[in-house]
């Protein structure tokens, strides 16, 4: 009886030939290899898309900040990768929990709030090394000497700045965060052009740029 059972078991678990095993192994290897390569590509693509999306959102955020300040500025100046401006000293922060608007007054023909010299706002970058040792930049907005981080770990911040409007009221800015993943071997310039975000902002107040000197 035992022999019968063993015979039956052997008959149902007959092995594969060497050729079959080799073919199967090859197919499985190819399949796993393809899956690995595919998953790596997918992951890379996902990370690239996520990076592009997040940096694009960061670009918009920075431009929104810059445009907001430019619209209310009365003096604007640009230097190397920095934008500096003066905005009215509008807020009475005597009581931080109850910030009020100041009353306007006329001084030398100009509307001023609080300190006639206004409040200095500056956008600038500061270099550092990230945890991998790679050089990256942080982008800050400084208001009245207090800096606040806007974007962290960016590769480049390039404030394009056109100030050739004859009435000097239109200021154009552009910001580029080059992507970490590139599908093709394109040049840096082409990549920057393709990923730059632009804004043209009208400075609503009459400019008194001399106040920044």
């Amino acid at each position: 009886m035992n022999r019968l059972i063993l015979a039956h078991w052997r008959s149902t678990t007959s092995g594969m030939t060497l050729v079959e095993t080799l073919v199967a192994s090859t197919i499985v290897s190819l399949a796993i290899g393809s899956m690995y390569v595919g998953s790596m590509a997918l992951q890379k693509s996902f990370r690239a898309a996520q990076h592009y999306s997040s940096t694009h959102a960061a670009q918009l955020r920075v431009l929104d900040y810059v445009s907001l300040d430019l619209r209310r500025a009365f003096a604007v100046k640009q230097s190397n990768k920095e934008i500096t401006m003066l905005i009215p000293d509008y807020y009475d922060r005597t009581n931080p929990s109850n910030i009020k608007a100041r009353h306007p007054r006329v001084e030398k023909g100009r509307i001023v709030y609080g300190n006639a010299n206004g409040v200095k706002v500056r956008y600038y970058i500061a270099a550092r090394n990230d945890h991998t040792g790679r050089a990256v930049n942080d982008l800050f907005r400084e208001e009245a000497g207090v800096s606040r981080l806007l974007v962290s770990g960016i590769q480049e911040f390039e404030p394009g700045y056109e100030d050739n409007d004859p009435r000097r009221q239109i200021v154009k800015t552009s910001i580029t965060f080059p992507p970490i993943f590139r599908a093709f071997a394109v040049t840096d310039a082409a990549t920057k052009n393709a990923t730059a975000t632009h804004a043209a902002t009208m400075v609503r107040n009459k400019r008194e740029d001399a106040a920044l000197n």
Partner: protein
Amino acid sequence: MQPIHRPRQTQEGSAIALALITTAILTILGTTSFVVIQNRFKLAHQTAAWQEALLPAEAGIDLAVHEIRKNLYVKDLTTVFASPEWTRGEPIADSDNDGQRDAGESYTDLNTNGEYDSGGYSKTVSFGSREASMTVYAEQLNPVTMGKRAEDEPYWRVSSIGTVKLPPAASSVGGEGFDVKLRKLDFRVDHRTGIPLPVLAGQNRPVPQATRRIEAIVKPVSVFRLALFGTESINANNHNPVVDSYDSRDPNKSSYNPSTPWIPGTYLAAKRQQNGDIATNGSVIDAGGAHIYGDAATNGGSVLNADNVTGVITDDFYQEVLPVSTPKAPDGSDLSPSAGTPSTIRGTTVIDATANTVKNVVVDRISLSGGNTLTLQGAAPVNGVVPPTYVQIIVKGDVSLSGQAKIIIGTNVYVRVFIEGNADISGNGVSNTNSPLNFQMYGVDNYRRNAAGEIVKDASGNAIIDYGTIKIAGNGGFAGAVYAPHYDIEMKGGGSTDNVFASFVGHRISMNGVTSVHYDEALADGALVGEYKVVSWFEDNE
């Protein structure tokens, strides 16, 4: 005994486990992608809503300025903001609909001064079933608290909040903390007022919103905001004149001394300013090589011989021209002259200006020759300071000064002259040691009228104007301002020291031999209001 089928069972179990693991991995991947995408989508939508909120906020400013400009045409303030959509005071939650704010009723502190204000006018406009709205509040500012004189025209402060609703499902903020600090979206409570957001019918939670608040200061601008404004043309093609500016209120821009604020500063070439702007509603300015220290603007035309124009040359200028009519009594009748004033001025005359109220003088003409003078006398000094006094002269006919004749304006006397005829101010001109603002001359509109007093129109339906003339001799001296859109203004001279301290508005303006026109920038802040201009713009993102 049944055979053992273990190998087959092992294969089946492995397949199920593999399928479950694969499904789990795919689910995790899908969920992660979905969360990431949803967050990005939420951020994009919220960013767009925040951007869109700027549009109604700015539209609110435009709406209020449009309403304020009604002042230019209707001098009765009760008609300004008379539209039923405008209500007095800041917007309130008027629960009992009695039209006023009662204790306990909340309000929107649009000017963010921490208290309810009832003096201004407010209005709310909604679009698309309240998906977007603007709420605007406009209030006059006390000139004294603005650092101006009590008698100055008041500025306006306009506060506007633009609101765009977010989808109710957007119950949390997308993006990072930096986005939150910038956009300050409201999900349950209006962060500006602390008032809970309303829950709309059929929904179980408030509709989140994005808001933007703008504050603009609107300034009344005098009709004398330019050095030269010709509605038709400007011709400076003679003797290379100079047009520049100074500010009689600023020690850096004139001889003004802050320790004697009642004495206006005078022009100093060393403190010359670059606001001697010239402009025309027509198409031609012939600068003629004149040294224009300021801008030159035409309406679709060109500036000829503009080598010495220091400012910007533009061709998109247009300024509305206000009608000029003889002042009337409040009931619309002709103005009666004040007691004791002359009915004609043909020889040496002295008129005492009065404080607080304007002395009205109505004469058929002013005709001075030889050594005759017209003296407009001010008040005696009080503690060393001469108080302001006022006189208004209505001339039904011509004004003529010749020989050595001149008009003398006393210290701190404000004079307004309305001329219905022509004017030739030669002789020794107008002696005005005050600011040019103290002597304002208005040329009354010269529409051609028929026997019934109706304005005659040409075949195209345009009113026919018989342009008058105003001639001013620079060598006689002139410090004042002229507003006469229905007059051709000729500044004539011949000397090398001609200086006119003035602003001119006329039909055609020509400078024939006058060396210099110095525009006092203080003129833009006084006299007849000709425009309202946004001079300060601030977006409040607290």
